[in-house]
């Protein structure tokens, strides 16, 4: 019965219900920590509202102006240099938590954007231009340059490897 109920609940609500239960448990064990966690949640929520609005606005514009043909032309195949550049640059300049970008990426994939570029976008997010001075302060200029260089290289490698594994899995399934 419970198994059937869980099966019928969509993934998005399953996670939500699980987290609510977690909070319920925390309230029961340590009410002070529960309050602290809720306050932290609220503060963070208020902070990310502009990012949520920005991402959803971007999605709106994206759906309105960017046609599937254009996307497939530039980001549909995992081999074009322009695609790498777009994925890396947009990954670097994207701000806010990673999960805020999942809806837009899901939308882009539905329009034909290749997994290679989605992976590259997500990995290149490790480079945060506004935070580079902080990295220099803590670990030095040489470290920052080397670190950033490797992230750039590995964001491309990740894109290739992930897409290769997914393709391999698909082929094995088909056989």
């Amino acid at each position, binding site marked *: 019965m419970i198994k059937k109920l869980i099966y019928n609940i969509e993934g*998005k609500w399953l996670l939500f219900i699980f987290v609510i239960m977690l909070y319920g448990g925390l309230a029961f064990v340590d009410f002070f920590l529960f309050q602290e966690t809720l306050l932290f949640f609220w503060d963070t929520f208020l902070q990310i509202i502009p990012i949520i609005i920005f991402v959803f606005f971007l999605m*709106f514009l994206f759906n309105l102006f960017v046609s599937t043909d254009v996307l497939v032309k530039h980001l549909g195949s995992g081999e074009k240099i322009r695609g790498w550049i777009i994925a890396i640059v947009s990954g670097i300049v994207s701000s806010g938590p990673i999960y805020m970008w999942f*809806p837009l990426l899901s939308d882009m994939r539905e329009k034909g954007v290749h997994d290679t570029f*989605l992976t590259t976008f997500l990995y290149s997010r*490790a480079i945060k231009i506004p935070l580079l001075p902080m990295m220099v302060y*803590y670990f030095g200029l040489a470290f920052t340059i080397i*670190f950033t260089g490797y992230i750039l290289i*590995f964001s491309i490698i990740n894109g290739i490897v992930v897409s290769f594994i997914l393709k391999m*899995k698909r082929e094995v399934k088909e056989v």
Partner: protein
Amino acid sequence: MQTFGAIKMSFPTLIGILLLTSFIITVIPKDLYVRVFTNNHFIDAFFGAVIGSVSAGSPITSYVIAGELSARGVGMVVIVAFLVTWVTVGIVQLPAEIVMLGKRFAIVRTIVGFVSAIIIAFLTVITLTLI
């Protein structure tokens, strides 16, 4: 209309992940990060990557924690692995990634990202020693 549908679909997941992130940040004690390390580079790099993967929050926090770890004598390999996975690998966010980008993509990307972080950690330290 299409955008509205996407917002409706992703909102419960986003709020769920934000609640989970807040839970992890406030419940996990900060000094736990320092306590788990040994003196073995490989094991420590692995633990550094694991902690970065399960941690959540702003990248600024990761820099502050990494700075603190460095000040307490934790090796650079650990710090790099920790910094990279903090942003690129999200175990806490994995349910959201699965819901929105698919199970296979999310899992493969997480594993490849995790392994890459450890490789980057060693390469960074080796390069730093060579120059």
